[in-house]
C-alpha cells in the first residue's frame, strides 16, 4: 500500500538560512499555504525534518490534483438548485 505526505507550508522561510530555504525550494514550496504531495520515503522524511517548524504534514492515501485542492478551498455556496420533479 502506497501512502503520501501532504505537506503545507505554514510559515515562510524568509530570513532563515540558505540551507533551510533550499530544502523548501527542493520540496517545491514557493509560497505560504502551498501544498505538495510526496511518497512516504526516508529521503522525503529527512527533508521534512529540516523544515518541520515551517510546515504541517498529513499522511494521505493518494495525492490530490491542483483542481481538487482548489475545490477543497471553495466555500459552501449557501444555496442549491432544485430540479423540477418528474410528472
Amino acid at each position: 500500500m502506497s501512502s503520501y505526505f501532504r505537506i503545507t507550508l505554514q510559515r515562510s522561510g524568509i530570513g532563515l538560512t540558505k540551507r533551510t530555504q533550499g530544502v523548501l525550494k527542493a520540496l517545491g514550496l514557493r509560497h505560504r499555504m502551498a501544498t505538495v504531495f510526496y511518497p512516504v520515503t526516508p529521503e522525503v522524511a529527512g527533508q521534512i525534518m529540516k523544515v518541520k517548524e515551517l510546515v504541517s504534514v498529513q499522511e494521505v492515501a493518494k495525492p490530490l490534483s491542483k483542481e481538487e485542492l482548489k475545490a477543497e478551498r471553495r466555500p459552501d455556496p449557501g444555496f442549491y438548485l432544485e430540479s423540477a420533479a418528474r410528472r
Partner: protein
Amino acid sequence: MFGAFKPTNSLGGGLLWKIPWRLSKFQKARQRKRLRAVDTVVATLDKALAKKSITTKAVERWKEEMPVEQEMVPRDKYTIFDRKEKKYRKSIRKLPKWTRVSQRINPPGY
C-alpha cells in the same frame, strides 16, 4: 530630572526600545502551540514511516534527544541558556527567529 542619576531618554540617545524580559501569557500560549505543532509533525512522520517499517536517522535522533512539549519544564520553554547573562538565563525571544527555530534543550545544571 537633572543630577547624577537621571535616566537617559530617547532624545538623549538613550534606550528607546524597552522589551519586556518575560513573555506575556498569550505569547507563552503561542510558544507552546508552536512546540506542539512541531511534535505533531514528527509524530506524523514517525507513524507513516513505522507503517512501512522504515527508520530515518533524523527522526530517530529527534525522538531520542528532544523532549516533547508536555515533558519540558517552563524554564526551557520560555528561556534559554546564556553564559553572559545574570543567572545564566535570558528570554527565548532574544534568540533570532525564535518562532521558527527549535530550541528545546539547555546545558544540564543550568
